[in-house]
């Protein structure tokens, strides 16, 4: 005889409801993507699901829209990656995984260009059959005009101005909108002898000039299609896709540019028929929809929310890649704020910090990254990664904080009992706030009492970017992060370490480094055309920066990115800071 324990009706209902809810939540977390996951890190620095199958709609989901889709104005890394769908440049990055993806290759140009006059003249010839979305040919004048737009900072602010600084260091050209010449192509340092030839005359050589030409801000723009400040709403396409619709902050849709000739483009294969992006305010909802298969990948490429990350790691690890990015997260010491004008006080903080705790605050080894031991991203030529560790940050004795050494440095600094200071951190970056709290806790052990000031993250340029404000607020430690605009020491470190880049507003040289030897090394770097020589100088600059103890590096950042099993040609690339290379992604099933 079977006996059952009797449960009172109401309690039974409650238990049943709880069980149903738990079951539903588990089911919800599992998703319904029946396709096999290829495996953890299966597309990290290698091609996964190589295929030439065309068709379908590649769906991106993002929690943040681009700062601008105008090629002159956009500065977000994911936006540069995405812009290759609808914009071309003279040179671009190879569509290959890993390090090879950061190498330059001709795009609109027929070859890598002819460099003459001691690196001061660059000449490019354009390919045949390169066209705009209305079928008209792309000319050298269109490229010149597109570059000239960088000078119109009063209308088109926000983007990088490397080319402007290199081609017109004295700021003589007023920009195309104030240009009095008939064709509005009055910039003297660019010549267009015919529609197929473009010549750049640099007043001073710059060995990274080719890198600058590969940024989207060097894309062609046609004068009659330039809607100035409204251009971001519908850029005129020179690539395989064109804008079909765009509602800022809501959605974006690209369709095939039927005038684009595949034969004219050695880079883009244009597999999907449509590219779409939808923007979410609720990161958890977005992560769940990625897991469920409603979307194929995260547009922003910064990894899931903590909740989504836990679910994905537990149940869908085979759909994740964990690439090393070129971001470094760090604390920087403004030397205008005592006692950080004293190198020993700076060193005390570096030694006293618990580097493992800082790594964990950033998300741990997977979502946070490797403990950073110096200030050059591992993907930049000349970088030594963790091999160069002048303060023993990642070593057994130092990674949990070396209290003894920190106290020695405090004595040398004349503050044996520690001191008070303020840590400035953006209030819109929870991970950075957690990092500041971790640092605060470890500094307390060596007698440094740090207060945390969470400032308005949207106003970074005006708050920590203003040296006068930093001094006034006594920000001794600023939490920040940086990635190169292009993968060289100049693309990463010039705004951070060169004395020429100390600005009254929008400053990024927070430490106020005025080191003639560092400035001199940057001067040598721009003249050095040999790659081996460039790497050597990069290494030297990094060593000088670390010897000055201006920074406490936290992590060489890693992302944990979701990859739909439906994707083909998926691989991460150093060309875009460890993101998936968007431009050649395809879909297994066109439906």
């Amino acid at each position, binding site marked *: 005889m079977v006996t059952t324990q009797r449960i009172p009706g109401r309690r039974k209902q409650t238990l049943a409801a709880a069980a149903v809810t738990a079951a539903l939540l588990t089911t919800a977390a599992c998703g319904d993507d029946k396709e096999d996951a290829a495996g953890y890190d299966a597309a990290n620095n290698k091609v996964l699901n190589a295929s030439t199958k065309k068709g379908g709609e590649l769906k991106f989901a993002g929690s943040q829209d681009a700062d601008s889709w105008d090629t002159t104005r956009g500065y977000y890394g994911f936006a540069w990656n995405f812009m290759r769908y609808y914009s071309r440049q003279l040179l671009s990055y190879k569509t290959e995984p890993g390090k090879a993806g950061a190498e330059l290759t001709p795009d609109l140009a027929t070859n890598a260009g002819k460099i003459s006059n001691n690196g001061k003249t660059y000449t490019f010839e354009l390919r045949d059959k390169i066209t705009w979305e209305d079928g008209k040919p792309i000319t050298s004048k269109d490229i010149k005009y597109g570059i000239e737009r960088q000078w119109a900072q009063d209308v088109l602010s926000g983007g990088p101005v490397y080319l402007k600084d290199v081609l017109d260091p004295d700021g003589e050209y007023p920009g195309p909108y104030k240009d009095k010449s008939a064709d509005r192509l009055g910039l003297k340092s660019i010549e267009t002898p015919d529609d197929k030839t473009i010549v750049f005359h640099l007043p001073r050589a710059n060995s990274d000039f080719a890198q600058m030409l590969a940024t989207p801000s060097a894309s062609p723009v046609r004068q009659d299609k330039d809607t100035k400040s409204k251009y971001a709403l519908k850029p005129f396409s020179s690539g395989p896709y064109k804008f079909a619709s765009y509602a800022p902050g809501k959605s974006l849709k690209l369709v095939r540019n039927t005038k684009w000739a595949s034969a004219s483009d050695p880079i883009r294969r244009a597999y999907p028929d449509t590219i779409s992006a939808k923007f979410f305010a*609720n990161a958890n909802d977005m992560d769940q929809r990625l897991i469920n298969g409603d979307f194929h990948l995260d547009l922003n490429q910064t990894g899931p929310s903590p909740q989504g990350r836990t679910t994905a790691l537990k149940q869908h690890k085979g759909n994740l890649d964990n690439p090393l990015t070129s971001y470094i997260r760090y604390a920087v010491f403004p030397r205008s704020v005592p006692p950080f004008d004293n190198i020993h006080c700076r060193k005390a903080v570096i030694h006293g910090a618990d580097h493992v705790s800082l790594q964990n605050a950033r998300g741990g080894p997977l979502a946070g990254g490797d403990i950073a031991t110096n200030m050059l991203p591992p993907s930049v030529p000349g970088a030594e990664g963790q091999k160069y560790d002048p303060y023993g940050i990642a070593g057994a004795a130092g990674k949990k904080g070396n209290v003894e050494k920190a106290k020695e440095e405090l004595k040398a600094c004349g503050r044996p009992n520690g001191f008070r200071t303020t840590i400035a951190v953006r209030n819109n970056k929870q991970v950075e706030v957690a990092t500041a709290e971790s640092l605060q806790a470890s500094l307390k052990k060596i007698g440094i009492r740090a207060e945390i000031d969470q400032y308005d993250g949207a106003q970074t340029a005006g708050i920590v*970017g203003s040296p006068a404000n930093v001094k*006034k607020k006594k920000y001794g430690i600023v939490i920040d992060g940086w990635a190169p605009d292009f993968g060289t020491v100049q693309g990463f470190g010039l705004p951070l370490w060169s004395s020429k880049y100390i600005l009254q507003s929008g400053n990024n040289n927070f430490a106020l480094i005025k080191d003639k030897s560092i400035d001199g090394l940057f001067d040598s770097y721009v003249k050095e055309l040999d790659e081996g020589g460039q790497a050597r100088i990069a290494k030297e600059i990094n060593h000088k920066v670390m010897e000055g103890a201006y920074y406490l590096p936290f992590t060489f950042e890693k992302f944990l990115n979701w990859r739909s099993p439906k994707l083909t040609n998926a691989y991460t690339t150093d060309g875009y800071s460890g993101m998936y290379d968007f431009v050649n992604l395809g879909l297994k099933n066109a439906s």
Partner: protein
Amino acid sequence: MLAYLIRRLFAAAVMLVVIIMVVFCIFFLVPEWAGVDIASSFVGKQADPAAVAAVREKLGLSDPIFVQVWEFFKGIFAGRTYAAGGEVTHCAAPCFGYSFRSEQAVWPVLTDRLPVTLGLALGAAVLWVVVGVAAGVLSALKRGSLWDRGAMVVALAGVSLPIYFTGLLSLAVFAFGLKWLDAQYVPLEQSFTGWLGGMILPWITLAFLYAAMYARITRATMLEVLGEDYIRTARAKGLREHTVVGKHAMRSTMTPLLTMLGMDLGALIGGAILTESTFNLPGLGRAILDATRNQDLPIVLGVTLITSLAVLLANLAVDVLYAVIDPRVRLA
């Protein structure tokens, strides 16, 4: 009545001006007092002083605050011309300016987002009024019963649980678990069923919160009214119970409910920020959230103006309706 309306409208207009000035001060003067240069946040990583100055000029940040406020109001009624860096743009009335970030004209953004928020607020309001009032009335009539206690426990839960909890739970259960609904917003003009599918969960989630409040208020007011002498008189005259409750008691119960409804609906039309964010509805609430994060003042101002207008108009409508519901109220 007409004089009353004119007086109220004039007061509403004054209130709008005050609100706009306060918002202007929060976004422009407060950062300035804190020593922050707003223009520099628009220039990007490689800011140079000339670019910062040019942006300041373009956004009119160098003008005195009163000039900026005046230009803003002038734009609403007469349109406005923007000239900077060789670019001249005319913005026709009603001109709320251009987004600092996306360069879109603000008015079309508002008119594009408003129907989403209206749909959300009105749909949810119907639900919460019907469910909340019915539950409240039944609870009052069956005071102390199992129904009354059960309904009030649910109401307490509704009031206590935040929308981002109930919203995420409903998504996890109905959209990702049972898959009954896709719960992704589809514009009404694209597909009615798609729109309905995308709106049901937001309606229920939002209505759950408000229905709970309305049920509690309805119950309390109804209990109070049912103890009044005129109800006893009505019963003594032999009127049937549904007439006593439906005709006499309900009329008095409606007055505080109507006040609440006017204020709630008005505030929601300005954007149900949490609901719109949880369900990714592209309404005014999300617009103002994104705009605040991005320091996009024209959008913030536009949404604020619409919210204030909606609250003021809703209150005005409530005041007028008072006279209809309660003949003792006279508008003078």
